[in-house]
């Protein structure tokens, strides 16, 4: 097989700090090479350097040759010549990668105007429509649409059409499905695979997610700290990894974690009945309400002590609203919430305060969940003081220290500020902060989706231990079915504000009933237990 791309000794440094250390890559025609690694491994830098997209502050050296192109691809002048025509890229976030003031058709036509200038306006339009049809979009309608009129999946398809319209030899895809819902992600992956085979195009696929990579890659290269530690065919690498880091990555996949201890649930902590949260749609000068967005439309949910209840659903299904509502952070339109035997829906927010200690929350974004202007110690101890836990400051300090150390954080954590920690450490601090109050229930809103897979595994196992040993209850909001299968006792599938299916963990994975649940499970491609 002829190689389309050959990279030797690619090194990228920023202010003298090496970020990518002399990596070698080859991609053959029609082949998909996946570059897999955790955040900070240098995989995105590698992709951007091949297209000459790195800011001048980065020093790039090494050799990269594209079939049929004279000169080193890492030379900005060469990259400029081939970018878009022979080498195309699709990005993670399709909303920010498309220009919001131009129609999709105009943006695709612009690529053609540069790379195929001989085309007549009619011919150009033909090619645009053809490209959109190829990515299974309605060509006429989508060509005339602006990016904000499209869904996330449609946008990513439009991005792919734009990348493929000039018929590149190599497509670089940087986390192209990370921002998409699981079901949409599966469709886009299938589309990419089909298009690649039809065009005989080579693809460099960057991802942090081994489950995604397993669905699309022919060969996989694993990156760690700027170096490739292992390369192999998908089948070999996923079944018999040789390098310890690859082994660790694979072992950290939620569906490969050792099953957790489960116990019989205790008394009911939280029971909510017929929850409705509607947001008004207002129009015109007078802000007349013309309709309602039904974020939650008659949801029943209960959580018992020592039980993990998972809430799954796509973005916009109302799962985060449900978490916020149960915490009293979101006013209810109607319904009842019973927390520890007390009816909470009608009472003012102030009356929630005595119960706040017993229900804690951890959010998705570790960078936003801690106050950047206060030390970790102050932030953990303040709620302790408010809820009168610990007799003296020294005792509270000891409790905070204990909570931080239980999450495997350094012992000087309490003296430091949030910006001195990485995302994974901050998420562990956020969990420690919740645990310091010795709550009975924790609402976890996508707490691992911003984290690398090894960190996710660590946090999941720590939480599982707390559930098993102390009878902690979790309301676990997530979109990751593999995590659900590992952790949940009971699963609620939320779809457009309604619970479409509620089953115990074993029942759901054995026999999903609702079509949406079936699609969700099919898309997740879990290995059979």
């Amino acid at each position, binding site marked *: 097989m002829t190689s389309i791309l050959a990279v030797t000794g690619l090194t990228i440094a920023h202010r003298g700090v090496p970020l990518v250390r002399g990596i070698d890559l080859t991609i053959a025609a029609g082949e998909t090479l996946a570059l897999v690694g955790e955040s900070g491994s240098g995989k995105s830098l590698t992709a951007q350097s091949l297209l000459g997209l790195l800011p001048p502050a980065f020093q790039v050296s090494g050799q990269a040759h594209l079939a049929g192109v004279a000169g080193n691809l890492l030379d900005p002048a060469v990259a400029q010549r081939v970018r878009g025509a022979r080498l195309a890229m699709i990005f993670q976030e399709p909303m920010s990668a498309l220009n919001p003031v131009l129609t999709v058709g105009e943006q695709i036509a612009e690529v053609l105007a540069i790379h195929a200038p001989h085309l007549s306006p009619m011919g150009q339009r033909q090619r645009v429509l053809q490209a959109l049809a190829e990515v299974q979009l309605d060509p006429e309608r989508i060509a005339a649409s602006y990016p904000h009129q499209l869904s996330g999946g449609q946008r990513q398809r439009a991005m792919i059409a734009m990348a493929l319209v000039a018929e590149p030899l190599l497509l670089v895809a940087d986390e192209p499905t990370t921002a998409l819902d699981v079901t949409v992600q599966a469709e886009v992956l299938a589309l990419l695979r089909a298009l690649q085979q039809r065009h005989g195009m080579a693809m460099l696929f960057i991802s942090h997610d081994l489950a995604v990579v397993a669905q699309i890659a022919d060969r996989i290269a694993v990156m760690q700290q700027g170096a490739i530690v292992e390369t192999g065919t998908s089948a070999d690498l996923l079944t018999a990894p040789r390098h310890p880091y690859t082994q660790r990555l694979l072992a950290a996949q939620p569906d490969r974690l050792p099953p957790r201890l489960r116990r019989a649930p205790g008394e009911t902590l939280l029971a909510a009945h017929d929850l409705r949260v509607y947001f008004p749609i207002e129009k015109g000068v007078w802000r007349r309400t013309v309709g309602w967005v039904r974020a939650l439309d008659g949801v029943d949910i209960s959580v018992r002590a020592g039980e993990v209840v998972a809430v799954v659903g796509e973005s916009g299904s109302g799962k985060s609203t449900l978490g916020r509502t149960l915490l009293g952070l979101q006013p209810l339109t109607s319904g009842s919430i019973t927390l520890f035997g007390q009816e909470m829906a009608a009472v003012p927010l102030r009356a929630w305060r005595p119960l706040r200690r017993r229900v804690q929350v951890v959010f998705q974004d570790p960078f936003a*969940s801690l106050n950047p202007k206060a030390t970790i110690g102050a932030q953990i101890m*303040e709620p302790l003081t408010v*809820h009168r836990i610990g007799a003296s400051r020294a005792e509270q300090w000891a409790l905070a220290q204990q909570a931080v150390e239980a999450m495997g954080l350094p012992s000087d954590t309490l003296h430091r500020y949030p910006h001195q920690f990485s995302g994974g450490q901050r998420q562990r601090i956020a969990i420690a902060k919740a645990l310091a109050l010795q709550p009975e229930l924790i609402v976890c809103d996508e707490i691992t989706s911003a984290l690398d897979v090894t960190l996710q595994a660590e946090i999941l196992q720590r939480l599982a231990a707390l559930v098993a040993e102390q009878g902690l209850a979790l309301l676990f909001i997530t979109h990751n079915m593999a995590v659900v299968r590992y952790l949940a006792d009971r699963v609620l599938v939320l779809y457009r504000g309604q619970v479409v299916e509620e089953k115990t963990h074993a029942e759901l994975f054995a026999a999903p009933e609702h079509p949406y649940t079936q699609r969700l499970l099919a898309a997740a491609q879990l290995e059979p237990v």
Partner: protein
Amino acid sequence: MSSHRWLLRFAFGWLALLATIAAWAPLLANSFPLLVCYEEGCQFPAFRLFSAVDLLWLTGWGVAVLLWRVRWLWTIRVVVACVALLVAAGIGSQLEPPALVVHESWRTHLTAQPAQRVLWAPIPYGPRDYLRDFGSTALEPPLAAAPQRWHWLGTDDQGADLAARLIHASRIALSIGLIATGVALAIGVVVGATMGYFAGWVDLIGMRLVEIFEAIPTLFLLLTFVAFFERSLPLMMVIIGLTSWPGYARYTRAEFLRLRRIEFVQGAIAAGLPLTSILFRHMLPNAVAPLAVAAAFGVASAILAESTLSFLGLGLVDEPSWGQALNQAVKAAAFNWWLALFPGLAILLTVLAYNLLGEALRDALDPRYREGVGV
């Protein structure tokens, strides 16, 4: 970047110099000698004119220098500062400076009875010393040769030494800027925080209030008040403060609207923390960046407002002020350049320094400038 640092150093230097001059004004420019020694003993005539305000300025300056140089815990520093200022206020209230000062009395006395030792202030004239003993001294240009007198910056239309007046006027310039901005900040932050946190109806009503106050022209209101009431410095400070808070309220509101949606604030509510803690401990410290920048520019505009008022002849009576000196430059038949140049320069440098400070704060507090091109 290096030119930036140089400008910032200038801004800090000028403001520190101005504060020093303002604090030490009675000892820098005074018609009475600092020290007079006869055979029977020594006296300190200048110190007998000390008022409570003079003492507070000096104490404040001393405390500021001490706190800047000494590396104590912040709580200790604040306690020390408060104690020092209270003691100064206590002593100050006991001081009884003479109500009527005959400025030339020591000059005539010393010509009649020469002393063994006399120590004069660097500028041996007070701001309200119209040099009656020398006859007509009005509108003399700088360094004009006159027997027994020497005026570095010339004299004004009343015959007072311009340098002495400018030195004493720096107090007004500094205090009006800081206090008026402080009043505006206090109102703006409370109103803006309430609007931003509670949103909804509170926000709607608050914004209308902000718009009403934004529609009031500060200068026009000042002119009206000055015409109807006495011309007093506290009144001017309060009016400038009362009309300039809407800007701060808007900034605070915008920041609070953003912050209340952020997870750590939601988390603070979910942890059951009291409202005051959520507002002032978790939200306000994360909203100070735009406020600090706006406040630095606000101080500059308050100084300009006072100068404008004094220039229009509606400033304080008999109190030295930079704007008033500017007014005198154009009031006489001829254009008296020194009365325009020196106070004009003082206003320019001070306003420039505060603007540079504001810009530097904006750059320092903006995370985009904090680190270069990020990874």
